[in-house]
């Protein structure tokens, strides 16, 4: 449980954040400079807020009124940053041991071997940080933070320094941590797709305040969130069930509610859930179901909102979840699209990206 209400004034930057959540894993999402990292630094005790309070797991770590300010080394809040911050003078093994050795055995939630196996870093243990690859460093840094048995793990853009191939290699480890260790996490990123890979629970921060928090499909209804997410390259993320593989035509059929979504062949067992994303700009709208068309996916839904943001028009279509389609103002005008209309979202199978295992 996180209950936070803090204020910090740094001249040009004002942070005034309130957040209450019982979700174990939340993604903190917002543009650069919105205060994401500052909130993490405050939780960890690296920055002292001007006033406010926060409680983690029932323990008050800071309260300006009651003069509570638990020392950093007593907070038991793990931190993993973009730069791994491994101790350069220690081997990977000694880095991992650093926090573990400071704990009384009864407080050690995980064993060294368990974490090493989970993160697959057994072969890296005798190396020094400068001998590790970027991905190796991040896995050791994750392991080091976990072995200190934190009550909350803060991940501050842990994948930002890695290229996309490495990102996709590390993400499954984060999911493993979430699923197997049941450790509460706050995952900070400016990439909403990265967050959605890990969790569906979001807190959205903009200009120093948290403007929404909750499930992705809930918060995305908020106009400010939508505009923000869109300006940061929002993709529609759907958690669909794998229904059928067709080897002959090399496609996979997935289902979401009553809609069937066809995409390039996936290597996923039938019946499992998978996260797919559809860029808003790759969705076209039609008022009728079309035939004689190469586009395979025609997802039926109801228009719930039409918003003009900057020079774009975003149409929200409820197909069981909300899909955002980016279309031109002229098209909306010509087709006379209004709220409540029944429309078909046209999506090319090739435009759908597969993100990996579904978070929920």
């Amino acid at each position: 449980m996180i209950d936070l209400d803090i204020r910090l004034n740094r001249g040009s930057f004002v942070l005034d954040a309130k957040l209450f959540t019982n979700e174990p894993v939340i993604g903190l999402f917002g543009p650069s400079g919105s205060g994401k990292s500052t909130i993490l630094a405050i939780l960890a005790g690296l920055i002292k807020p001007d006033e406010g309070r926060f409680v983690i797991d029932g323990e008050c770590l800071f309260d300006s009124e009651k003069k509570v300010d638990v020392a950093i080394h007593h907070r038991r809040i793990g931190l993993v940053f973009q730069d791994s911050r491994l101790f350069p003078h220690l081997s990977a093994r000694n880095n991992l041991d650093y926090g573990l050795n400071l704990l009384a055995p009864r407080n050690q939630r995980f064993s060294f071997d368990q974490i090493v196996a989970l993160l697959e870093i057994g072969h890296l243990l005798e190396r020094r940080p400068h001998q590790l690859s970027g991905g190796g460093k991040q896995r050791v840094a994750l392991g080091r933070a976990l072995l200190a048995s934190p009550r909350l793990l803060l991940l501050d853009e842990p994948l930002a320094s890695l290229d996309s191939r490495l990102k996709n290699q590390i993400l499954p480890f984060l999911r493993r941590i979430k699923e197997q260790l049941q450790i509460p996490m706050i995952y900070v990123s400016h990439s909403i797709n990265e967050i959605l890979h890990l969790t569906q629970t979001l807190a959205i921060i903009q200009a120093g305040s948290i403007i929404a928090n909750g499930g992705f499909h809930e918060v995305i209804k908020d106009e400010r969130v939508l505009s923000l997410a869109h300006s940061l390259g929002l993709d529609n993320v759907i958690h669909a069930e794998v229904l059928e593989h067709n080897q002959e035509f090399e496609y996979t059929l997935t289902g979401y509610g009553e809609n069937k979504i066809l995409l390039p062949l996936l290597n996923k067992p039938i019946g499992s859930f998978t996260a797919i994303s559809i860029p808003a700009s790759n969705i076209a709208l039609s008022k009728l179901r079309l035939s004689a068309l190469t586009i395979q996916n025609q997802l039926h839904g109801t228009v719930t909102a039409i918003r003009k943001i900057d020079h774009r028009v975003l149409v929200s279509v409820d197909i069981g979840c909300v899909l955002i389609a980016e279309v031109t103002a002229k098209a909306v005008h010509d087709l006379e699209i209004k709220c409540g209309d029944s429309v078909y979202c046209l999506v090319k199978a090739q435009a759908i990206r597969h993100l990996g295992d579904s978070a929920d």
Partner: protein
Amino acid sequence: MLHDLLNFTPSEISALFLSIKVALWSTLASCVPGIFVAWLLARKSFIGKSLLDSLVHLPLVLPPVVPGFLLLILLGNQGLIGKWLHESWGITLVFTWVGAAIASAVMAFPLMVRAARLAIRQVDTNLEAAAQSLGAHPFRVFFTVTLPLAMPGVLTGLILAFSRSLGEFGATITFVGNIEGETRTLPLAIFTYTQIPGGDTAAMRLVILSMLLAFCALLVSDLLERRANKRLGLNPHDD
């Protein structure tokens, strides 16, 4: 001639060992306070910081006779602290090798502090914060993260202090005099030989000895720094 240059007399050998003894003790004595003051100056802000900074650096810019004289006033048998030491504890510092070590330590202190401060300042505070968030008390963080990472610079400081102590002249002769076997270190012995007729060869012998000693100290410093840098995965210096 060459034979003369290598033919050391017992009193010259004693000057050599006395110099090493004084320099070692002065370095040892300034090590812990030097690192502490370096850490204070590198990481803390407090009232009187610039005063402390100036005070520490004073021996570097003053004529060495001045600190020597001040030591005499403070620690001499009739001095402010010296009188108490002498009367209550029977400790005499003037005209003893311990006094020589103290004079050397005072003169070498700024070099120690400067090198260590620079090294500590270059340690990434993010690493210290990371150690704290893993549950380490700031005290432990200093000894397990800050100090090991600053070690190359701290070692340089120690070697510099050691070399400076070997060469200390002005403060030593003012505070503890020039007594053979007690306070006559290499520079003082060289000075003594230059004052007596026909002492030039003997002085030359000691000059060569001093140069060898200083050269060894610098070699050791370089070696230690390379090893420390290699351990941290840093590139060896390009100089």
